[in-house]
């Protein structure tokens, strides 16, 4: 009985690790799709506009953004060589990195929000290697079920296990 219990505990640990690794793989696939989609969009825009946008209106990756209410007072100290900055906010703020910004711009076709259309799913799959297309289909189905509340947390674990 003890050995059986140990095997059960070991099984739960593995399922938990598989869940985390699937989430990490999904994040990497979303970043790959978002990055390729952004590059393609900019290249198309540059062709249409016969050249890149004004330099001071573009922000090259990688970058971070800090967004806060317009009413926030920010006290900022900067070292003379611009190697150090200290910001004091009198209100809350949020920090997001470039991959999060691209997702919010829709560069990953809403896959992570379960709102990806069939056409966008086709495009998204074309942006990843063939061997990984299945994961994109799964991700889209899984997140749209979660989005519609059709997949409870226990079922998510099972789906993780089945797909794994």
């Amino acid at each position, binding site marked *: 009985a003890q050995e059986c219990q140990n095997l059960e505990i070991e099984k739960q640990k593995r399922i938990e690790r598989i869940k985390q690794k699937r989430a990490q793989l999904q*994040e*990497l696939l979303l*970043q790959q799709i978002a*990055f390729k989609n952004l590059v393609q969009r900019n290249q198309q825009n540059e062709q249409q506009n016969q050249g890149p946008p004004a330099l001071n209106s573009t922000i090259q*990756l*990688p970058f*971070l953004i800090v967004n806060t209410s317009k009413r926030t007072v920010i006290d900022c100290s900067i070292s003379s060589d611009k190697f150090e900055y200290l910001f004091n906010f009198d*209100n*809350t*703020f*949020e*920090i*997001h*990195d*470039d*991959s*999060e910004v691209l997702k919010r711009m829709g560069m990953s076709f809403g896959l992570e929000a379960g709102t990806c259309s069939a056409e966008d799913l086709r495009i998204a799959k074309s942006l990843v290697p063939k061997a990984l297309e299945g994961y994109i289909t799964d991700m889209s189905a899984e997140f749209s079920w979660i989005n519609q509340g059709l997949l409870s947390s226990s079922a998510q674990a099972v789906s993780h296990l089945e797909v794994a």
Partner: protein
Amino acid sequence: RSRILVSIGESFGTSEKFQKINQMVCNSDSHLKRSAEVSAASKPLKRL
């Protein structure tokens, strides 16, 4: 007290670290607001 230190400027991606920071800032704000309300409410009303 708890501080969060992350390395930035790396190549594109790996964003999960900021969710933790944003959660921490957001929670503390609601906590501060709640304690402000409590302290405001607790002042005894002056007797006329």
